[in-house]
């Protein structure tokens, strides 16, 4: 094993992370990540680990508490790697490493080692060790076996995440697989509110779930942390068994990579349906909008997010109007519905609208060679999102009369349509600026991960959060303001938001022309 070269590759991986911090946005991201990491670590070690230790000792259920916490962390870390894209980045592709004097086994080890040493995993391991120290300080854990168990659990968690990632990639490569997968993830996310009350009322279900947990790696780690002798050894063996089994599955899948889907049978498919859809916003836009629709429709992430935004719309409207504290009746529901419909206005295209050019790569240059205003590419992309969002809004409005509690008031339809349009126009306006001023080169072919800049994330998450909580907070202070009699206010707000959007389009077009060289450089990976 060429350990010297392996160490050199790992060092290089950290140098690359450090190199990213040279840009202004990189420094901000590094600062935020560092700050967040410190806060989380402090909070967990101080309150979490110690607190849990105290709770576990007081309740006399150290193993059960540790199992629950480690299971949660294991699951969160695995889902987090898939959704945020952290912790699985091998940085150097196998093809790249073939240039160096490394054997196949060494390349494999290097790839996994580099990915495992991602700072994301330090956060997970840090929290787990916080728990161990907490339990140890209260005399409920054994430091040495606990540390060994957590080390093994860390490897097992990585292997599980990697295997899940590979399964996901294979599913996404199949026709319709992306949608099925996202539906499964959503079902996982939606399940707890339904499962918890069920388990509370059905004792046999709860005990079956606990019995099932006793065969998982986190249980093994909890056992090794809190028990001595044979139980501790059994715990370690359990994690090692899982790691070996999952590792073997991972190696097997790596040896048989997924085949690329052949999309055509020799006959040219001109697919002019995209252009026809684009012509909804005028013939002058049809080619560019048709092009954007085709471009995004080939993107796995888009194919997952947009179709699922339609059922998500129903879920949002239903869920937000039935949250604890929302009183039934037109006024109580209305404040939450206003927030939900604001989100409906951009949810389907949200993560693309704040980084319009992120997936173009070298193609960005092409727009500037076309005989027309270069900013037309930016405007047409924004129109494309507006077109797609209009469909989501219509679905939302169709769902509303069905899910509303109490008597349906027809005046709520223009009111909520106005809210959605306001949300859409303001979000698209903000998206133009983040796309220009905080653009980031993304990976078109990655099914998961977060390719947005700090500003892009702030707009996306900030818009969602403020629409979830904002109207409800406002309704608490001004309950009389949220009435269907004021439906026209929402339409006036939509008209004002449309005005903001049009002004933003004009100003952003000027900015686009000025920043086009910089944008091309970012998309081509030169800046």
């Amino acid at each position: 094993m060429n350990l010297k070269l392996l160490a050199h590759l790992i060092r290089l991986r950290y140098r690359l992370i450090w190199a990213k911090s040279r840009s202004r946005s990189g420094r901000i991201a590094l600062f935020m990540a560092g700050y967040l990491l410190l806060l989380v670590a402090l909070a967990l070690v101080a309150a979490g680990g110690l607190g849990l230790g105290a709770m576990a000792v007081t309740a006399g259920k150290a193993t059960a508490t540790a199992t629950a916490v480690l299971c949660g962390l294991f699951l969160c870390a695995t889902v987090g790697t898939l959704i945020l894209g952290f912790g699985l980045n091998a940085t150097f592709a196998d093809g790249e490493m073939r240039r160096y004097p490394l054997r196949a086994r060494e390349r494999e080890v290097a790839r996994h080692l580099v990915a495992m040493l991602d700072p994301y995993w330090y956060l997970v391991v840090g929290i787990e060790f916080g728990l161990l120290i907490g339990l140890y300080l209260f005399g409920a854990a054994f430091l040495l076996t606990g540390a060994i168990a957590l080390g093994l659990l860390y490897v097992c968690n990585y292997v599980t995440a990697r295997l899940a990632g590979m399964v996901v990639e294979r599913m996404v490569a199949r026709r319709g697989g992306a949608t099925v997968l996202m539906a499964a993830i959503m079902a996982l996310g939606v399940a707890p509110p339904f499962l918890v009350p069920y388990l509370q009322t059905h004792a046999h279900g709860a005990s079956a779930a606990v019995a099932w947990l006793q065969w998982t790696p986190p249980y093994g780690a909890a056992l090794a942390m809190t028990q001595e002798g044979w139980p501790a050894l059994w715990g370690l063996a359990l994690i090692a068994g899982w790691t070996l089994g999952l590792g073997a599955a991972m190696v097997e899948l790596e040896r048989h990579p997924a085949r690329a889907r052949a999309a055509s049978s020799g006959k040219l498919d001109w697919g002019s349906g995209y252009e026809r859809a684009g012509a909804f916003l005028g013939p002058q836009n049809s080619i560019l909008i048709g092009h954007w629709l085709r471009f995004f429709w080939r993107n796995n992430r888009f194919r997952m997010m947009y179709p699922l935004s339609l059922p998500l719309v129903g879920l949002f409207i239903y869920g937000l109007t039935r949250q604890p504290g929302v009183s039934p009746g037109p006024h109580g529901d209305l404040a939450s519905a206003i927030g939900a419909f604001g989100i409906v206005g951009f949810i389907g295209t949200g993560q693309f609208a704040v980084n319009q050019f992120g997936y173009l790569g070298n193609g960005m240059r092409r727009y500037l060679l076309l005989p027309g205003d270069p900013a037309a590419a930016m405007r047409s992309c924004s129109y494309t999102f507006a077109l797609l969002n209009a469909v989501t809004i219509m679905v939302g409005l169709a769902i509303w009369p069905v899910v509303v509690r109490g008597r349906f008031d027809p005046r709520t339809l223009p009111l909520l349509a106005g809210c959605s349009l306001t949300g859409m126009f303001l979000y698209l306006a903000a998206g133009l600026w983040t796309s220009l001023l905080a653009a980031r080169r993304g990976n078109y072919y990655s099914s998961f991960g977060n390719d947005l800049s700090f500003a892009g994330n702030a707009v996306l998450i900030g818009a969602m959060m403020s629409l979830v909580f904002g109207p409800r907070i406002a309704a608490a202070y001004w309950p009389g303001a949220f009435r269907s009699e004021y439906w026209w206010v929402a339409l006036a707000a939509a008209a004002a938001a449309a005005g903001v959007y049009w002004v933003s389009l004009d100003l952003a077009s000027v900015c686009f022309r000025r920043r086009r060289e910089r944008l091309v450089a970012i998309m081509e990976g030169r800046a």
Partner: protein
Amino acid sequence: MDSAIVIRHLAKEYGAVVAVEDLSLTVPKGAMFGFLGPNGSGKSTTIGCLTGLLDPSGGEMEILGERFTAESVGLKRRMGVMPESLGLFEPLYAHEFLAFVGRMFGLDETTTRARVTELLAALELTDSSKTLAEYSTGMRKRVAFAAAVIHAPEVLFLDEPFESIDPAGVALMKQWLRRFTEQGRTVFITSHVLETVERLCGAVAIITSPGKLVWQGDITVLAADGAIEYDGQQFRALEPLFLRLTGEHYADLKWL
């Protein structure tokens, strides 16, 4: 003879870095013009300014007798460009990409489809099961070349067009380019393959960093076994002249 391209005192700066400095150049109509220089000398920057990708910091450009800026939409319709980075939309199929470019350059749907089909067949890009991302570098270069010529432009800018293309592809492209210039159209070409430039181009300009013109002249004499005279020396091939003008030399590494 009419000029297809006139560059006067072109300058391009990136902050304190000067990429092109006071470049003046004239390319006659119907010429196959080679634009040469070492790496980082400002060739691609010059093409970027000439095609509207970059805003020059100073000077002016005229193409086909009209002043050219990034906003010259009418002129852009008469130009074809093959950038060095190719500018392809990788998730698209070749025919979709070419159809998009054709339509954006004002061709109607029927003409676009007919030309795309002909171009794909001529350039042997008939594997319609692969997206551009799945094509080899040479195939992607052919697609970029097809995108540059699909609207039959009057001036063609090609940035390193022959790199990575197999000999049959290069021969086909050369044949097309010769016919192109015979019809009075102009080709402005950058390449590091000096032998190809020598055989293909009638005139060349050589620049050095930062975008300074050091020589411009007719090289047809080389094809007739003649010689170019410069600074009292006779040059029978482009390579020694290029090395002499750019100050490039062969470094001798004793360990190699």
